[in-house]
Structure formats: structure tokens, C-alpha cells
């Protein structure tokens, strides 16, 4: 039982971090219609900033710079590239982001080399033990922070003018524009939010129990894609809930691999996608997706 609860806690805390990344996908997609293939390298850029600055200026200041830096990077990508596409449509935008990803990732790989840069967080390799369940402190902090961030996002979208403008633009950009919502502003806000969330996720994904900042960190954004799709592409709540589902299912598949051997080895990698395809077979618009998105 303790074992089950440990894996469950592992999965939930990991799932909350996946949720941070998946929400970034959702916000960029709803605000500018872009499938952001460069999300992973934005995440890595933020984490790299933190790791390389934490020595000289301390962890907390570095974390602030990293989060702001990733947000600015997102805004710049949107303003300089996405808005200047020769023809704006989701297909070309997605490929544009692939190009951006190649450039960013190549440069970061060159800078990091084969080092694993320490993120220098104050929680180090500490762990918290409650009733026989041991969880890394970083994961507990991550879970707490993610819940706070999700609360703030709710407040932003439900209670502030800027957030309502973003939602309106996402739901119907033409009507929103007629009502005075500036799509350039909501787009920039979306990219900034997504970049900041990615950097926060990056900090925790580079903290213990993970080793630090290495180029492979950029791949972690791929792990959030099933969560995004499962949640329904355009639903922030869906992304958070699906993040949790994917996190838990993955942790249990790995934890009980010995018992699930008949399904083949290396189950942890395929299970998120298997869950995603199964859900889409039943609900093509995902768990929380708007029906409009797929209406025939």
C-alpha cells in the first residue's frame, strides 16, 4: 500500500508539472493558433538561464530572471516571427516553430556541452517523509506552486479584464476584435504566460530527483503533448486534469512494469499515447474540448 501511495504521489507531483507545460500549449494555441513545437527549447532556455546565473546572483534572483527571460523569449518569437509569416495558418506556424526549435536547441546544446548544470535550488536533494511515503522536497514545492499558479490563472481568466479579453479572443477572435480586444496584445500575453510557465516547469524538471539542466530537458515538452490533447486542445482545466492523469498513469505503468510484463517492456513511454488514442476514439474532442472544435 505504501508502495502504491508513493507511486501515486510521484505521479501526481509529476503530473502537476506536466500540467504547467500543457497549459502553455493551450494558451499559445488559443491566443495565436500556433502549435508550439519550440515550447521545449523555450523551457530549456529558461532553465539554462537559471542554472548559469544562480552562481553569481543566487537562486531566487536567477529564477526570476529565468522566468522573465523565457516570457520575453516567447513574446519575441511571436512578435518577430509568428506575426510576420508570409501566410499565417496552423501548418506553416507549426513548421516555423520547428525551425525556431532547431536554432534554439542547437545553440543551447553548444553552450551546455556534455555538462549537467546544477539548478542550485535551496531544496537540493532533501526529501519529505509522511507516513512512510517519501517524496523529494522539490516535488512537494512544485506541487504547491503549481496549485497556486493554477489558482492565479483562474483568477486572471475569470476576474481580470485582460484575462477575459484573452478568453474572448480565443473563443471568437473576429467578434472580440470588433469589441475592441487587440489580438496583438492577447497574443503577446499568451506567449509571455506560456514562456513563464515553461520556465517554472523547467526549474522543477531540472531539480532533484532529476540531475540538472542538460539538452535532453527540451524533450520533456513532448511528454506534455498527450496531456494537452487528452484535455481537449483549448481547455486550460482540461490540460491540468489530463496532466494529472498522464502523470499518474505513467508512474503506475513504470512502478508495476513487472506485473504488466505481458504488454511488453518500456511501457512508460507508450502508455500516455495509448491513453490518448483510446480517449480520442470515444471522445474525439478530448475530455474538456469545446464541441465546436470538431463539429462536422
Amino acid at each position, binding site marked *: 500500500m505504501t508502495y502504491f501511495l508513493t507511486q501515486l504521489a510521484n505521479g501526481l507531483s509529476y503530473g502537476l508539472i506536466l500540467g504547467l507545460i500543457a497549459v502553455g500549449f493551450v494558451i499559445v494555441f488559443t491566443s495565436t493558433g500556433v502549435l508550439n513545437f519550440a515550447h521545449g527549447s523555450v523551457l530549456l532556455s529558461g532553465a539554462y538561464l537559471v542554472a548559469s546565473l544562480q552562481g553569481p546572483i543566487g537562486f531566487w534572483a536567477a529564477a526570476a530572471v529565468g522566468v522573465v527571460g523565457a516570457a520575453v523569449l516567447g513574446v519575441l518569437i511571436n512578435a518577430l516571427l509568428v506575426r510576420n509569416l508570409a501566410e499565417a495558418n496552423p501548418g*506553416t506556424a507549426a513548421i516555423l516553430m*520547428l525551425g525556431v526549435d532547431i536554432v534554439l536547441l542547437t545553440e543551447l546544446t553548444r553552450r551546455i556541452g556534455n555538462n549537467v548544470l546544477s539548478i542550485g535550488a535551496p531544496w537540493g536533494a532533501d526529501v519529505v517523509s509522511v507516513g512512510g511515503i517519501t517524496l523529494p522536497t522539490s516535488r512537494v514545492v512544485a506541487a504547491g506552486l503549481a496549485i497556486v499558479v493554477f489558482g492565479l490563472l483562474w483568477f486572471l481568466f475569470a476576474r481580470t479584464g485582460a484575462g477575459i479579453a484573452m478568453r474572448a479572443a480565443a473563443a471568437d477572435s473576429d467578434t472580440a476584435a470588433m469589441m475592441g480586444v487587440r489580438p496583438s496584445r492577447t497574443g503577446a500575453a499568451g506567449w509571455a504566460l506560456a514562456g513563464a510557465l515553461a520556465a517554472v516547469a523547467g526549474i522543477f524538471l531540472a531539480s532533484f530527483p532529476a540531475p540538472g539542466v542538460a539538452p535532453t530537458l527540451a524533450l520533456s515538452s513532448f511528454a506534455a503533448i*498527450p496531456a494537452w490533447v487528452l484535455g481537449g486542445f483549448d481547455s486550460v482545466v482540461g490540460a491540468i486534469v489530463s496532466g494529472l492523469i498522464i502523470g499518474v498513469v505513467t508512474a503506475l505503468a513504470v512502478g508495476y512494469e513487472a506485473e504488466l510484463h505481458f504488454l511488453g517492456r518500456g511501457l512508460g513511454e507508450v502508455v500516455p499515447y495509448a491513453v490518448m*488514442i483510446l480517449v480520442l476514439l470515444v471522445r474525439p474532442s478530448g475530455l474538456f474540448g469545446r464541441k465546436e472544435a470538431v463539429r*462536422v
Partner: protein
Amino acid sequence: MSDLIRRGPMVLGLLVALALPLLLDDFWLQTGLFAMASVVGAIGLTLLVGVAGQLSLGHAFFAALGAYTYAWTVGDPAGQEAGLGLPPLVALVLAGVVSAVVGGLFSPISGRLRGIYLGLATIGLVFLARHLMVNLEALTGGFNGRTVEPFSVPGFSFSNAAPDYLAVAGVQFEGLHRLWYLFLGIAVLSAWLGRNLRAGRTGRALANVRDSEVAAAAMGVNVARAKATAFVISSAYAGIAGALMALAYGRIAPDLFGIQLSIDFLVMIVLGGLGSIAGATAGAVFVVALPLVLAQYSSQLPFLAAPGSGGLDAATLARLLYGAAIIAVLLFLRGGLAGAASRIRHRRSAHQRGTGGPPLVPTPSPDPSGATEPPPSQPAVSTRSEEKS
């Protein structure tokens, strides 16, 4: 006259492609084989994405299916991995058929999801494929992969054997040379089929679905069925492309069919210009050849740092240039490579005719005579109707 202008470059390109093996060394021959295999896959994807408006990131899955189907069908029944020992020609056809059938099985999803949503859903297939390739060892050879028997027709092998020695105009024709013509033939056939498909009834129905599903449904098109059909066709193309890749490699393993391959196919068609067969061809050649050429020749640039010294080395520069090239095409070339080419052609023919056509056309407009192909740039998910067919 317009017929010659239209066909001229194509015929010339074909003649050049026929003659090239006489001049090229192995590096370029191998590059050409990979490029032509990719051309077939890219045409299939551009029919799905550009014509039907459906996005797929599962192309690598169907390529893998085709590759392993081919290897399994021609495989030695007594060999290490299972095989049927059937003739290669049967295997090539089967590669397309099996991929098409599996593409059809996916229709509950491919018929209901639209555009970019389908694209993301199909990512799952690639990871599923990897799991199967690694775990179904008897069939696939597991992570080590399995060897692929060379292609042959009775009396002639597309490898270095049977006949052992073959020369054309003094150039010895080895396996790579012979495969070149096989690949060229299949690529041309795929392009021809793709063109007819796009211009025919099916293509028009798919274009209607892309532009407005409601309007298409009102006109009597079964929307779900049309979308599933497009997916099946594109899967068949991917299967053939996979079989060609298997032949070009000589040995296949799960690592060859990762998500990167799906993404590469998508890059090819978007760079080339969505929906255009010629664009898909140009995009495939660009995506396959550019990194290879950069890798091959960038090391000769004098101003670069030695690898490992921490400076900007040739390999890093090549990768950066590749990324920058993708960005530049998308920012500055409307309609991708095909769009740019048709603009140039348009401009030139306007000059030649000396008629009152606009001298510098900022955006391409369809030739009123209908002789030139319609502008290929159609959004993957569009709500506006621009098609006039």
C-alpha cells in the same frame, strides 16, 4: 505554346534525373535515393494536408509499416526473423496495401477529427509503432532491426549482383545506380497519380471538405468518409515510401521511424507549398539534401572553430543554417517553394507575352486560361473558401 512552357521544365528535369547516375558519385546517389523515397511520402502527405486540410504527424508510423511489411514479405522464411519469401514486386505492392488498410482502421479518428487536432492525435501512432517494433522481435528483429533483401525482378537484381557487372556509357552501374531508376520510376508514377487524384472527383470533394465541411455536406459529400479516404490514400503513399527507405538503407531499425521522420515530412510539404505536388517534390529534396550537403561541405569553411574548442564549429553552423533556412522560407516565400516558382514563371511569361498583364504581381493569381496549376497555398485549417474549381 503554353503547353511547352508548362511541360518544358518537367521534361527537362526528368531527362536530367535520368542522366544523373552517369555523373554522380556514391554520396550523391545515396542522397538521391533518400530524396526520392521522401518525395513519395511527401506527395502522400501533401494530398492529406494540402488538399484535404487534414494534418498528420503519424506519417512515420505508416512508413514503418510499409518498410517492415516489405522486409517481412521478401524475407527468407528460414532466416532469423519471420519472412514469407515472396517476390519483391509483390512485397512493394503489399507495403502500400497494408499501410492503406491500417490507415482505414484509424478512420474512427481520422474521419472525425479535423486539421491540427488530427495531427496531434496521430503523434500517438508513432510512439505506438516504436513500442511494437521493439517488442515484436520475431517479426521486426527488435531494437536491432532486420536486414532488407534487395529488390529484384526475374533476371535482374537491383543490387551489385546478377548481373555482376553492368556498365552504361563506360560508367559501372552498381546497386545504387540501378536503384536510382527504380526509385525514379516510382516517384514519377506517384506524382502522376497524385496529380490526377487532386484534379479528379475525389480531389475536388476533398478540397470542398477542407474549405467548408458544412458546404461540402450540403453538396452531398460524405464528410467523414472523405476525410477517412484522404487518410487511407496518404497512408498508402507513406507505406510505399517506407519500403523505398528500407531499400535505400538495406537494414531497418525502430530508430529510423521516430517522430523526427514525421516532422521532416511535414517540413517538406510546408516548405514546398501545401497541396502542390511539385512543391512536395522540391521540399523533399530540400529537406533531405540540404543537411547532407551542409554537413559534407561546411567543414571546408576556413573561419570556423575546431570541434570541441567551444567556438562555432562546422557541424553546429550547418544545423543553425538549416533551422534559419526553414524560418526564412516561411517568412518570405508565400506558398513555399512552389509558390515562389509559380510567381517567377508567371512574371517571366507575362514579360515574354508582352501583354497587358500586371508586370510585377505581388500575389499569385490563377491563370485565367487554367493552364497553370492553381496556387498551391491552402491553409491546413481554413474557414475561408478560396478555391474556384
